[in-house]
Every structure is written in structure tokens, then in C-alpha cells.
């Protein structure tokens, strides 16, 4: 089987590469995950927190890294470079070289004695040179794989034939000074490039004194300052004197939107990460006063605008809208920094003194992008990023080679993750006929029946997320005093790879038969720990978690003593429940190997085509009479083609695809069943399917303001495009008003696309007739990424941009049909009045009003703005918490067509991970009937929402009846258990005795 299995080469082990590898592996393909560094994790592993949820970056990343390293379908190749690529898809021959590690991969146990003994100190790349590593090292404590490597440029033995201490001291005999590069040839059907990005070298902005002034840092350095594992243990201090700063300034657009540095594009993520850093720094440091100097706040993503509002109002972050900070001067005595900038509201040069300055450095193409482009024979764009096009956002210029993540353009983590899944869908299409079947791991399960509980407890520091508030050693000591606890210890990050090994060792060493981890929430981390104890031979259900972070240290940050007591209470409850845990077994369920896509816009069509291209049947349910969605009405050009033309071509492809059935004029009426076995009731009949993609889109806001509908010269951008399409725009003086129906009290969010679309139309008009006067009234211009060039182009063509205050939109009046527009110009500091011939409203995007009905049918949530809400905003951007249902396009959040298509491919890949499997496993946590106690009263039967319970004749006694649970249908809510009057119904994993043990333990008196 294995040699016939289709394989994909993934280059880059950051979050993009890891996600794409996992999706391919879960769809039955072999993956070679190649990373040139000694471990995977990428830049995300260096971050402290992630916006907009302020999730701990390492905590959400670590489980993915561990999963990738463990997956039987993924071959992890670290310290590996690609030498050449021959042949063409789907028959690439890739030559790679495994660079010497000088440590035997199989022998190294990661104990770290070598690094302890090594005398050579080197600045650590992981901490951006702020901390020291040794010549033999792991990049960071939670490195995956946890294998040491020798830095050949620094090692005394390798360079001068001296020392040799690591070899002398390695207990495993793993040191291999004579290690040599090994070449290997791989046969792959497709290639995915995810080499990530590098940050701008701040030294090039000489006027900011980075590298000269000690208290000027880059934002990546500051991430390490904030991190518990960083140089100052998460405390914000000034490098010059280790004192706590009071005034800290962030300077935006360092190496972005800057012709002087050659990077004219916007780096898309810096506004958000600066606000995040300012918030977290403020949390860490009492009395800290953060100020952000920026040009426009580009808070265009999902719930970003809310984050901005909170940053200002709740956290008191001063947002200083200024022209670029001109320069920084250091006070040589205090080492304070004096910022000089011109204030656009006064046009005067101002100065302000700060204790510390963080430079928000932009994103650049990865080092080695040019050589990558040569090896893989792909084009780079003019900025040096991978060249892609609007209509194939994941494809490189060479067939069968795809790109994902920041390699194609600066972007944030969720976009990278969605794209990573999307690239997996594209690559899988080349090898769909060579799908393999994952074989079960064969670890012998330890029989714990009849054994006295022997419980192990691991209490997590979570860096300082827990240990900063809770006295973790005290909780460990307390745990040891609890009945049946055989062993307890502290762990820095319980979710890290080394801790997984530690847990397995502890289980074996102490012969444990239950395990409790006191860390974060079981909603995200229980599966990781369950698979860990499974690898150690314990049934995964012999595991229990105590949530001492999300529901303790984080919500009781200022009460360390009480939080510590509560953590002890929570551990005591978990231990009490764990004593009564029993092994549970999942049963196998059949899978319908097809998908349903709800919505026939470009997102829905893209998802359907990607699923169909891997050989699965797809039904598109579209409620209107035609495919195309909003795209059918968008007539401006992207990459030389009108979006409406592209939508038409896509519809033709869909109609020609024999795997796709299109149901027009069809409404979804009900959704039944469960992952792998959904039943979609439509107005035209029932469809059985294994997986569902929600791509219902959104709609244009219909304005009621600015005399729209009352004056025929007031139109929306889409209406303008229709007029331009027919060549009918006589107006000479045109005013465009941004944020119509966005960023207001009705819809507080930014609709993301309106700035670039308005500017695009302004450019077209201006190019067709340079004598036209065009004004754009805006709050911020949010042309992120390469779209910044449009903004620049419009400016150079003479389009006038007038910024109005956030709370003071323009006022439009009419005299007869003559229009007058009055607005406060923040640069002039005065009202301006204009008599435009035409006013174009840049209307926002609104979710469908009936999203709620569909959400209820699918049992998935909506966000507070009524868009569909994904399972996790950062790392599960196209998943719902409900298995088997996925999300793409405007239904998720406003976005451009290329972004919608990339996300749709992502949703397709995720759906394929379900429908490609020969069978699925049922939940372990389901209802079960104790036959001896059930008297067949049938009270439970109508209680069950899933019709999982039937009352049958007792096979042992024809006189009696009893309840039977269908394990495929049971969802494990436990509703029937609470209803059962005889105590016969039980919920596995949440038995009455187990819950009562937790209640009793909660109310037990302790110290």
C-alpha cells in the first residue's frame, strides 16, 4: 500500500506548512514535510499572544506541531533543503539533502545534558538574539522534534577539534561528529510551498536608531519580551537599565508603505499586532502608558474593529494618528527616546519623550525566496513574493506547485491556515486516485479492570499564564496529598512535545492508570492529552482535565491566593472524578462519500469544484435561479478579467463537471444526521451527504442615507460599475463616501473590501477621463497588502482623499437635483463644501438576515455581528465546532474574491478529510442502558432529540421491554440520563457517580 500511495512535498514547517500537511495526511496522502531549521513551528512559535482573542500562541500551536510529528502519514524532514525538482505534475522527482545534525536522531532523548555541558555560547535565533543558546541546542524548549543538533559554524570540536564535552556526557551516545549530508530522492504528485516570511531589517531605517539606541526594539523582539519564556520572563523592562518603562511608543509601518525602503505594500498585520502588544504590555505592567503612532488603522479582519475599540476605550491605548515619525533622538543620560513627528491636525512638528520604542516591522519575502523560485521554477511578483493571481490565489506559475501563507503576500495566521487547507485540496486533486488508508496504531491497551486507581497529575505553568498568578508548586504538593494520586509534578507547557513524552514516561514509570492534567480548557486540549495517554497504552477516556487557566488564573489575576486555592479545588474535583473513570470504546460508523455545498456563489462553486476534483460527488444547493452570487454583479477587472466574467466561467465549469449536481431555486429546510451521515431536507427533496460546506455569502448594504433613492445621482459602487460597464458616467465631479453602512452603530465592523474597490473604480474613471475630479471621503484607507499600490496610484492620478472624523460623517443635501456635500476635513481642520455631479456610496457588506435559521438547522453558532462563527478564530478558520460542517466566503466575514476562493478551497479540503475516510468513529461519550435496571418505562424515548432511543422487547424476557441506544445517532447530550427515573440510563464519561464525586469534592473543606 505505502509505495503506491500518493505523496505531496510540503516545504516549510510553520503553521501553514503544518496545517496543509495535516489536512493531506487526514485525507489519506503521504506527506514529506521539509523544514530547513532543526525544528518546526515557524514565526508563530515565537509569538506571545495572538490577536484578536489574545490566545497564547504556543498553547494553540503546540498541539498541531505534536500532531504533525506523530502522524503516521507525515514524514518530518528537519534540517533539510530541496536541491532540485524534475519532471512535472503528478510525477515530480524532488532531490533533497538532509544536512548533518551531528546528533543521532533516533538515539537522542532530548535530555539536554549536552547543552548544559557545552561551553560555546551563541545568541539564540528563537529569541531574536536576546538570549543565549549553546552550540549544541534545541531552538526552543517545546521544539518539535525534541532532538538536539550541533551548530557546525560554532562547535569547537567540528571547527578546531577541541572540547568534545557533549560526546563525553551524552548518556545516550547520540553525538555523531562525523555526520554527513545525505541526499534522497522523493516521488511526489504535487508540491506546496510554505516558507513563510522574514521581518524587515529595522537597521535600514537609520532615523530610528535601531541597533544604536538600546531602548528601541523591533516588534518581534518585543514579542519575546512579553513571553514567559523570553529574556525577562514576560516582564516588560527597558534593555538599558532593566527598569519598568512607563511610556512606550509603537511606530507603525516600519518597512511597509515606504518607498524609501522599497517596500511599498502594507504588511497587513502590524496594526493588529501592535494593538495586541500594547494591550498585553499594559496587562503585564501596572501604570504603563502605550501610544501607537500610525497612518491608518487597518483593522479589517473578523472582529478586529471591536478589538481596536477595546484597545482604545478599555485599555486606554493612545492612538496617535500622525504622519510618519520623522526620527528618534536618544537622551544620552536617561536613554529615553525623543520622537519627532509632524502632527497632521496642526501641521506642526511635535516632540514627545518615551521610555521605550517598539518598531512595528513589516513582513518581507523569506530569505532565499529567489533561490526557491529557481529550484522550483516558479515566478515571483515584483515585490519578491510568490506570484499568484486573483483567480487562482493558491497556484504558483508552475502546474502542480501551490503556495500558501505569507510567501504569497503578507497575511495573518487565520488566512494562512485557511489557505493551507486550500492548498491541500488543490494538491490532493493530482493524486486523488492514490489515496491510502490510515492504519490503526497498534499500542496494546493496558487492562485496568479491577485495579485500584493510580493517578498521575501534571500541573501546567503555561509560561506565566498560570504560574504568574497561581502558586503551581503548592498545587503540585497539594495534589500529592490526594487519595490515589501516585505522582504529581509541574510542567512549563503541558501541551509541548516534551511534556507528552514526559506523561508517557510517568505512566510507565509509576504504573499509572488514570491521568489528570491541570492546565487550560478541555475544549481545545483534551484530544491531545488523550492521544498521549493512548500512546502509553491507557484508554484515552482514563483522562481528566482541570481548567486552572481560562477559568481560574485568567479570571482571578489579581487574587493569587484565592486563585491558588481554587486551582487546588479544581484539581481535587478532577482527581475525584478520575478515580471513577472507565475505559470507553468508540464504534465504527459508515460514511456517505459526498458533500453538500450550500450557496452557489464563487465560494460555493470553488469548494464544489475542489471536492469534485478529488472524485467525490457534490450537490450545490442554491436558492436563486442562477449560479454566480454577488460576483455576477461585480464588473471591475482583476488581473485583466472582470469578476463577473470569471463567475460565468466558473459556473460553466460547475455545470460541465459530472461529479457536481446543481439544485437551483432550492432552499434548505432541515438538516438531520451527524458527521459522515447528514440528511439535508430541501424544498426539492432529501440529499444524503457526509459533509456540508456553508457558503451562503452575504449581501450589499442597501443604504437609506445620503439621499440614496431620492436623487438619481446618488448611487452605490456596484451601480457605478454597471454604469461604467455601459460607458455611461458623464459626471465630472464625483464624490465617493466610504464606510456607508460600516463602522457605525448598526454595523460596527469594517467591511474590508470597500476601500480598495472604491479606489479601483476611481482609478478607472480617472484613466478614462483625467479631467474628472474625484474625491474620496474616508475614515481610514484600508488598502492592505499589495492593494496599497492602488492607493498610491490613485493619489498620483490626482484622486483626492479627504479624511473625516470617525464620528462625523459627511452631510449631503440637495437643491432640486443639485447635490451639496459638506464634510469636516481633518487635515484642514475645517469644513469643506463640494457640489458633486455624482455621489458614490461605498456600501458595506451585511450578513443575510436568515443566517439564523440555517445556523439553527446546522446547529452552528453565529458571531455577534450575525456572520457564521468558526470553531476557533485563529487556527480553525473554516471549521465549525460541529464536526463535518465547514465555512467559506462572505458567510464567514467580508472579504475579496481571491480570499473567498482560497478559503473555499480550505473548506473543501476539510470536508475531504471526512468524506475520504472509509469509516468514522462514533463518540465515546454516549448514553448506555444498564439492562438490569431498565424496566422499559419509555420515558427516555421522547426525550431524545435524535431519535437514538427505541423501546424493544427484552430478548431475555418476552414479557418485558427495554430501551436501546443507537450509537451512531446518539450525540451524547445526556438528556435522557437526567430523565430516567430508575437510574438505568447512564452517560459514559459523565456518569452520575462521576459527576457526584466532582460535586462532593468541590464542597469538601480544604485548607
Amino acid at each position, binding site marked *: 500500500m505505502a509505495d503506491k500511495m500518493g505523496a505531496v512535498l510540503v516545504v516549510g514547517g510553520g503553521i501553514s506548512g503544518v496545517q496543509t500537511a495535516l489536512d493531506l495526511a487526514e485525507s489519506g496522502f503521504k506527506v514529506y514535510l521539509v523544514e530547513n531549521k532543526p525544528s518546526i513551528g515557524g514565526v508563530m512559535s515565537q509569538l506571545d499572544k495572538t490577536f484578536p482573542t489574545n490566545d497564547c500562541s504556543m498553547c494553540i500551536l503546540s498541539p498541531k506541531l505534536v500532531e504533525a510529528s506523530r502522524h503516521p502519514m507525515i514524514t518530518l524532514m528537519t534540517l533539510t533543503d530541496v536541491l532540485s525538482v524534475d519532471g512535472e505534475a503528478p510525477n515530480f522527482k524532488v532531490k533533497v539533502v538532509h544536512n548533518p545534525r551531528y546528533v543521532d536522531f533516533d538515539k537522542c532523548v532530548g535530555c539536554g545534558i549536552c547543552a548544559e555541558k557545552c561551553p560555546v555560547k551563541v545568541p539564540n535565533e528563537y529569541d531574536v538574539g536576546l538570549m543565549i543558546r549553546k552550540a549544541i541546542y534545541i531552538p526552543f524548549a517545546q521544539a518539535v522534534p525534541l532532538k538536539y543538533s550541533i551548530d557546525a559554524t560554532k562547535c569547537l570540536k567540528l571547527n578546531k577539534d577541541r572540547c568534545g564535552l557533549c560526546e563525553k556526557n551524552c548518556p545516550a551516545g547520540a553525538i555523531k561528529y562525523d555526520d554527513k549530508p545525505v541526499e534522497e530522492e522523493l516521488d511526489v504528485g504535487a508540491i506546496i510551498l510554505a516558507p513563510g516570511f522574514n521581518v524587515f531589517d529595522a537597521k535600514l531605517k537609520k532615523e530610528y536608531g535601531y541597533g544604536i539606541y538600546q531602548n528601541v526594539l523591533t516588534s518581534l523582539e518585543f514579542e519575546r519580551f512579553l513571553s514567559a519564556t523570553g529574556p525577562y520572563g514576560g516582564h516588560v523592562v527597558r534593555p538599558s537599565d532593566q527598569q519598568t518603562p512607563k511610556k512606550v511608543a509603537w511606530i507603525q509601518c516600519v518597512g511597509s508603505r515606504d518607498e524609501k525602503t522599497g517596500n511599498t505594500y502594507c504588511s497587513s498585520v502590524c496594526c493588529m499586532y501592535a494593538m495586541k502588544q500594547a494591550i498585553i504590555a499594559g496587562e503585564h505592567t501596572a501604570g504603563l502608558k502605550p501610544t501607537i503612532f500610525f497612518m491608518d488603522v487597518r483593522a479589517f479582519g473578523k472582529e478586529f474593529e471591536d478589538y481596536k475599540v477595546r484597545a482604545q476605550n478599555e485599555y486606554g491605548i493612545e492612538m496617535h494618528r500622525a504622519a510618519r515619525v520623522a526620527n528618534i533622538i536618544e537622551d544620552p543620560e536617561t536613554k529615553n527616546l525623543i520622537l519627532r513627528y509632524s502632527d497632521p491636525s496642526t501641521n506642526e512638528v511635535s516632540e514627545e519623550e518615551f521610555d521605550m520604542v517598539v518598531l512595528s516591522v513589516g513582513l518581507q519575502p523569506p530569505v532565499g525566496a529567489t533561490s526557491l523560485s529557481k529550484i522550483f521554477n516558479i515566478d515571483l511578483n515584483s515585490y519578491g513574493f510568490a506570484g499568484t493571481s486573483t483567480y487562482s490565489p493558491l497556484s504558483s506559475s508552475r502546474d502542480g506547485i501551490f503556495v500558501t501563507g505569507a510567501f504569497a503576500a503578507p497575511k495573518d495566521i487565520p488566512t494562512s491556515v485557511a489557505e493551507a487547507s486550500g492548498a491541500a485540496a488543490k494538491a490532493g486533486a493530482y493524486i486523488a486516485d492514490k489515496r491510502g488508508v490510515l492504519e490503526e496504531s497498534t499500542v496494546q491497551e493496558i487492562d485496568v479492570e479491577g485495579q485500584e486507581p493510580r493517578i498521575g497529575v501534571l500541573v501546567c505553568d503555561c509560561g506565566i499564564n498560570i504560574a504568574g498568578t497561581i502558586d503551581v508548586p503548592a498545587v503540585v504538593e497539594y495534589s500529592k496529598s490526594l487519595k490515589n494520586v501516585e505522582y504529581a509534578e509541574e510542567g512549563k507547557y503541558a501541551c509541548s512535545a516534551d511534556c507528552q513524552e514526559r506523561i508517557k514516561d510517568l505512566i510507565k514509570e509509576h504504573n499509572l492508570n488514570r491521568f489528570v492534567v491541570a492546565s487550560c480548557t478541555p475544549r481545545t486540549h483534551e484530544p491531545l492529552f488523550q492521544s498521549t495517554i493512548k500512546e502509553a497504552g491507557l484508554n484515552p477516556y482514563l483522562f481528566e482535565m482541570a481548567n486552572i487557566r481560562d477559568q481560574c488564573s485568567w479570571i482571578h489575576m489579581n487574587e493569587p491566593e484565592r486563585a491558588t486555592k481554587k486551582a487546588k479545588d479544581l484539581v481535587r474535583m478532577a482527581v475525584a472524578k478520575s478515580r471513577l473513570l472507565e475505559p470507553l470504546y468508540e464504534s465504527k460508523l459508515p460514511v456517505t462519500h459526498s458533500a453538500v455545498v450550500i450557496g452557489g456563489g464563487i465560494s460555493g462553486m470553488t469548494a464544489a469544484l475542489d471536492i469534485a476534483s478529488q472524485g467525490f460527488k457534490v450537490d450545490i444547493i442554491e436558492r436563486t435561479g442562477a449560479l454566480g452570487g454577488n460576483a455576477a454583479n461585480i464588473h471591475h477587472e482583476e488581473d485583466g478579467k472582470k469578476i463577473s466574467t470569471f463567475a460565468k466561467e466558473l459556473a460553466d465549469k460547475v455545470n460541465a463537471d459530472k461529479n457536481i449536481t446543481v439544485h437551483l431555486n432550492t432552499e434548505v429546510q432541515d438538516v438531520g444526521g451527524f458527521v459522515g451521515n447528514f440528511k439535508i431536507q430541501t424544498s426539492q427533496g432529501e440529499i444524503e451527504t457526509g459533509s456540508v460546506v456553508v457558503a451562503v455569502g452575504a449581501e450589499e448594504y442597501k443604504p437609506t442615507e445620503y439621499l440614496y433613492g431620492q436623487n438619481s445621482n446618488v448611487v452605490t459602487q456596484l451601480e457605478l460599475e454597471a454604469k461604467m460597464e455601459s460607458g455611461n458616467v458623464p459626471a465630472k465631479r464625483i464624490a465617493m463616501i466610504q464606510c456607508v453602512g460600516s463602522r457605525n452603530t448598526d454595523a460596527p465592523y469594517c467591511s474590508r473590501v470597500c476601500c480598495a474597490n472604491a479606489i479601483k473604480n476611481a482609478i478607472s474613471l480617472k484613466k478614462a477621463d483625467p479631467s474628472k475630479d474625484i474625491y474620496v471621503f474616508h475614515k481610514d484607507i484600508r488598502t492592505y497588502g499589495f492593494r496599497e499600490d492602488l492607493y498610491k496610484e490613485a493619489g498620483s492620478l490626482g484622486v483626492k482623499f479627504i479624511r473625516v472624523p470617525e464620528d462625523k460623517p459627511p452631510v449631503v443635501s440637495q437643491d432640486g437635483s443639485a447635490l451639496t456635500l459638506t464634510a469636516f476635513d481633518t487635515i484642514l481642520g475645517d469644513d469643506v463644501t463640494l457640489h458633486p455631479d455624482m455621489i458614490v456610496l461605498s456600501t458595506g457588506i451585511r450578513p443575510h438576515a436568515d443566517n439564523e435559521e440555517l445556523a439553527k438547522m446546522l446547529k452552528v453558532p453565529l458571531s455577534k455581528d450575525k456572520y457564521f462563527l468558526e470553531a476557533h478564530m485563529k487556527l480553525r478558520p473554516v471549521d465549525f465546532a460541529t464536526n463535518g460542517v465547514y465555512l467559506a466566503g462572505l458567510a464567514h466575514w467580508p472579504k475579496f474574491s481571491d480570499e473567498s476562493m482560497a478559503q473555499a478551497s480550505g473548506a473543501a479540503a476539510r470536508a475531504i478529510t471526512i468524506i475520504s475516510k472509509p469509516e468514522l468513529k462514533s463518540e465515546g461519550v454516549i448514553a448506555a442502558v444498564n439492562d438490569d435496571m431498565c424496566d422499559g418505562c419509555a420515558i427516555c424515548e421522547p426525550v431524545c432529540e435524535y431519535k437514538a432511543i427505541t423501546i424493544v422487547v427484552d430478548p431475555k424476557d418476552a414479557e418485558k421491554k427495554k430501551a436501546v441506544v443507537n450509537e451512531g445517532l446518539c450525540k451524547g447530550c445526556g438528556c435522557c440520563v437526567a430523565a430516567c427515573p430508575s437510574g438505568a440510563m447512564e452517560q459514559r464519561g459523565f456518569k452520575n457517580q462521576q459527576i*457526584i464525586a466532582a460535586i462532593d469534592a468541590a464542597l469538601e473543606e480544604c485548607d
Partner: protein
Amino acid sequence: MTTSEMATTSSETFEPKIIAFCCNWCSYAGADLAGVSRLQMPTNFLVIRAMCSARVDPEHVLRAFSKGADGVLVLGCHPADCHYIGGNYRTRRRIALLKMLLEQYGLDPDRLHLEWVSASEGTRFQATIKDFTEKMKELGPSPLRGADKDPNRESAGY
């Protein structure tokens, strides 16, 4: 985060013990979100996770009171938002009945409270905890505190 947000309890000596049953999909996630958002609240409660609020057996509530809880919160998905379709409607009926029962036992029915908290409502979770803790402080210790001395007073079946 302001320190003034924290419960100031210096003038009070009574610290109520509260058990909060949370459903896995909405309110437990809402509680996690409160954590992620660093919303501060009193420490008096301990969460017990159930897959659905409808899993909370009346017996669990009575057990908590008999073991000395001053208050019990049952938190579930909003009406019509239940991950298990209609579990929360059953919860609502059960809690209404239970409150009547508590009154008959001489317990203030306000000591048992049902609230809907969705996965996106960290602030609502915080407000619920703050308000209920205040309420329990006003009501004072449960009359059943210490009534559990008799070791034979185990509930039926356990």
C-alpha cells in the same frame, strides 16, 4: 483591566460556595472566553462541565445543596441555540420544578439560578457570576450548611 472590577469583599466575611454547572458548547465556552478576555470575577464558584445543561440531574443540584453549597448555577445555551436541539428547554422546565421543591424544603429558591450564556458571551458569564455571588452574600449561608454531618444521609443509590 482595572482593579476596581474585582469584587471587594473586605467588609464581608461570608464567602459563599457556588457550584456552576456549565454545558460544554455554550456556557463552558463562554466561561473560557471570559478567561481569554481576562474578565475578572469573584473566586467563589467552581464549574462542573456537562455536555448539555439537560444532563444536570435534579439529584446533582440537591446533592450540591446537601453538601453545603450556598448557591447553584445552571448555565446553558440560549433558547433555540442548544447544541442538542432542545435540551435547554427541558432544563428550563426541570429548574422551574426544582425551585418549587427547594422552597418546600425551606431553601430560598433564589439559591438556584438558571442563566443562558452563549459561547460568545464572556461578559455575560462574568456578569452572571458577579451578580449571583452578590446575591448569595445577601442571602447569607445556606441553612443546609453543616446539615450533612450524618454519614447515613447519602442520597439514594449511592
